[in-house]
């Protein structure tokens, strides 16, 4: 691209129909800024989203958007990335979407470590279906939409991401847009699977996790001196254990910032390239499969590849 990308370039003319005051506005704003500052090529950038309030974000950003199914955005994102590793793939997904219906995909993506960024809009409720408890809502809490206090325990998203093998793990807060923007930029620049848990008040259904609530509790891990970098593979168990301990901090303090960066794991695309010598040069999306309507695998090549199945007389 000749011209530097601006935030105006990144806005679509689709009306942003989130509730006034929704935490998602902060996330959107951080996305615009991060994309502009990284000067991403809009054609080569894909925002994949799931279902719910967070899912709509794909329509608000002027890069390609794939607004998918509840729980399945990571599967779509991986298909896109593995078929065309040249694309920058950023997933925006809700907490119910990612850790409820999509939990298996969340774990599996960590094991593979593709170069994909997963940004979770964490508001502790299912907003678009009127405030049911999400997997990040703690037990016995009763946000105003719930008829009874929550009977299920909350999952620890940061802890789960550490255990699943994500190699960049952070938490952001929607009201700290500059901080979040930096996290998103670092996550995109990180080579491997990046996960950002973004605290995001639902102003309509959650009267507990308000801006006030978070403002009183959040503190910056990095300002507090936490170094997230795993300097060598041997350091991982110790570092991961410490990061996990931080993710379990109590109600009094909520840490934001980067918990863990582990640069020592090969990405899934690199693993594919090790097995498939042509993979990065000609990934599935860009490989020629026909010449003038005839398959590139012709009679002779077919015989060569599948000789084990062929008898010649």
């Amino acid at each position: 691209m000749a011209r530097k990308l601006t935030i105006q370039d990144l806005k679509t003319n689709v009306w942003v129909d989130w509730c006034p005051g929704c935490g998602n506005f902060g996330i959107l704003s951080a996305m615009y800024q991060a994309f502009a500052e990284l000067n991403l090529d809009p054609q080569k950038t894909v925002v994949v989203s799931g279902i719910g309030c967070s899912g709509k974000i794909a329509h608000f950003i002027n890069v390609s958007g794939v607004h998918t199914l509840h729980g399945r955005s990571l599967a779509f994102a991986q298909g896109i990335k593995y078929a065309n590793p040249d694309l920058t793939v950023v997933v925006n997904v809700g907490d119910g979407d990612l850790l409820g219906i999509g939990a298996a995909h969340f774990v599996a993506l960590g094991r593979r470590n593709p170069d994909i960024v997963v940004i979770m809009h964490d508001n502790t409720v299912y907003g678009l279906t009127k405030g049911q408890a999400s997997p990040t809502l703690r037990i016995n809490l009763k946000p105003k939409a719930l008829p009874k206090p929550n009977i299920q325990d909350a999952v620890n998203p940061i802890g789960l991401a550490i255990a699943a093998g994500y190699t960049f793990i952070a938490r952001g807060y929607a009201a700290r847009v500059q901080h979040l923007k930096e996290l998103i930029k670092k996550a995109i620049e990180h080579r491997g699977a990046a996960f950002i848990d973004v605290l995001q008040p639902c102003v309509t259904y959650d009267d507990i996790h308000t801006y006030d609530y978070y403002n009183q509790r959040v503190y910056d891990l990095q300002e507090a001196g936490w170094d997230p970098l795993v300097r060598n593979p041997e350091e991982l168990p110790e570092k991961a254990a410490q990061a996990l301990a931080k993710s379990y901090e109590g109600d009094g303090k909520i840490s934001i910032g980067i918990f863990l960066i582990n640069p020592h794991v090969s990405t899934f695309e690199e693993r594919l390239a090790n097995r498939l010598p042509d993979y990065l040069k000609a990934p599935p999306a860009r490989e020629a499969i026909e010449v003038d309507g005839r398959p590139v695998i012709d009679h002779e090549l077919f015989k060569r590849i599948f000789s084990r199945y062929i008898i010649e007389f």
Partner: protein
Amino acid sequence: MKTLRYILGGPQGGGLETSSEVLSWAFARSGYGVISDREYFSNIKGRHSYVHATVSATEYPKSLDYPVDIVAAMDAETVFTHFQDLREGGYLIYNVDEDKTLYSSIPSMEHDLRDRLTALFKELGIDGTLASLTKYLRSRGVRVIALSYKELLSEIQRKEGIVPSQVSRYISSIIIGAVAAITGLDPNALDQSLRRRFRNEEVYRHNRALAMLVIDTVRSQFGSELKLDEPSIKSKEVLVVSGNDAVAMAKTVAGVRFQAYYPITPAADESFTLEEYETLGGAGSIVVFQTEDELSAINAAIGAALTGARASVATSGPGFDLMVEGLSWAGQNEVPVVVTYYQRGGPSTGQPTRGGQSDLLSSVFASHGEYPRIVLASGDHEEAFYDTIDAFNYAETYQVPVIHLLDKFLANTIATISMPDFSKIRITRGVLASKGLREYRRFDMSSPISPRAFLGDYVMWYSGDEHDEYGHIDEDPVNRVRMMEKRMRKLEIIEREIPEERRYAYYGPDKPSILLIGWGFVKGAAVKAVEELNEEGIRAGYFHIRTFIPFPTNSVTKFIREVGLENVVAVEHNYMAQAAKLVTMNTGLLVSKSIVKFTGRPIYVNELVNAVKNVMKGSTREVLSYGA
């Protein structure tokens, strides 16, 4: 002999597949046509498994039939399970060391079979030992080849210096040798086949020595009494493939470069074959992605398809059910994705390793909301190969999901087929957007099929929600009507463009007096049954449905009208006669006679011939059940 039929039986995991593969290859190498079906329990080791094969000197066979000429048994259970499958004068090859074995003492035998044998043996005066059964069989004219497997193995162990604990691994070569002896199989062809199967030189040598020892032993007593005629099939090249392999190979030719799957029987072998040949001999590569579940598989394939890669999944019933949500997204977003669907026995896990055709209605109707799709169904290995390529061409031409129906019978059956005719194979990628457009609208409404661009080419949007031309959410009623019509009109285009003769095949005489209608693996048995019925003077014909969407409405209507509705019989591997329901839905003609089989075993020619005769005598429904 023109045609040879045999059963090889033994415990699952005991070398049966090896015996089957070596013999199939050796017969094929000698110029014969072979089809070999494998039946097995959902079990890794120990349950009874068998191979049922037809070898022909005159054609590439596509059907299986009873009775058989040879039952070759690795164990006593095989004899107890299959002795009734032998024709008069047929050959039983068995292990005389097991003579004292009682059928009732075999733990792997299903109690239902044991109960049936109890009743039968009482009636026949058999005491239940293997010795008493073989004595009875001899008295009924069965030629019994009693071999001491123990002696053969210890002899070969001595000669070849095999470690005693390893020698039982070679039992498969006893079966191979005995069948080779009786049928006069060319030793060179057998040798080449053994060499192909056993890449380890020592293992090859041991197996070869044992097979030769058995051949000498059996020939000295029996000669080659079932010698096959010289083959009359003239071919330069032949493929010996399972249905799974045929589809995998076709996918590489079709240009599939992304396959996602979650392990499930009987689909998974297709993905294994693709992975084995993933580098395509240097002509590119296929990403074979084993996902965490089927939900992920279909959606990853859809994601890959959005980037322009030809993408597919391979699955079976329970897996397909999980994919239906994703399929609907693909329908809404006009994504060319192909689902290769190997049916097996249901409902639920049903009969996970057995065959069936009970998922047809699910394939045609599975959806929330309405969207166009194409449904193809293959009847044999050749159809499976070409249908696979068509599936991807149709998917991209019409920008719709395509479901390609196969079944376990086809998946696990190894058959000789002609080399694909590459002069007939075309790759058509449909309407693509030009480069350098100022603005791209993925769902441009100027035509039902909008020019396609790939993620990476332009900025574009997709949404499972109803959307406008750009792909942004749009719930306006006028837009909704236009967008639904844009998508659904593709059905009219598909109806117009895919020719009627692509949608069915007819086998039989002009103006038949009875018309069988079937699909999928029914084809092989039906074509053969029709031939036999005509030889007997019964003018039977077989109408084979190859596409369910689009449906061969005009042709089937014409055929039904000519023969008269009362002379039409659906033949299917399901309880409901599901294809007949679709005939009725599409034509308004109620097909009410059926021959069905839902035991999980394929329809055999002889039972189909009988059933057709029963229908002609007035029966309206025949339920077939032959086979172990």
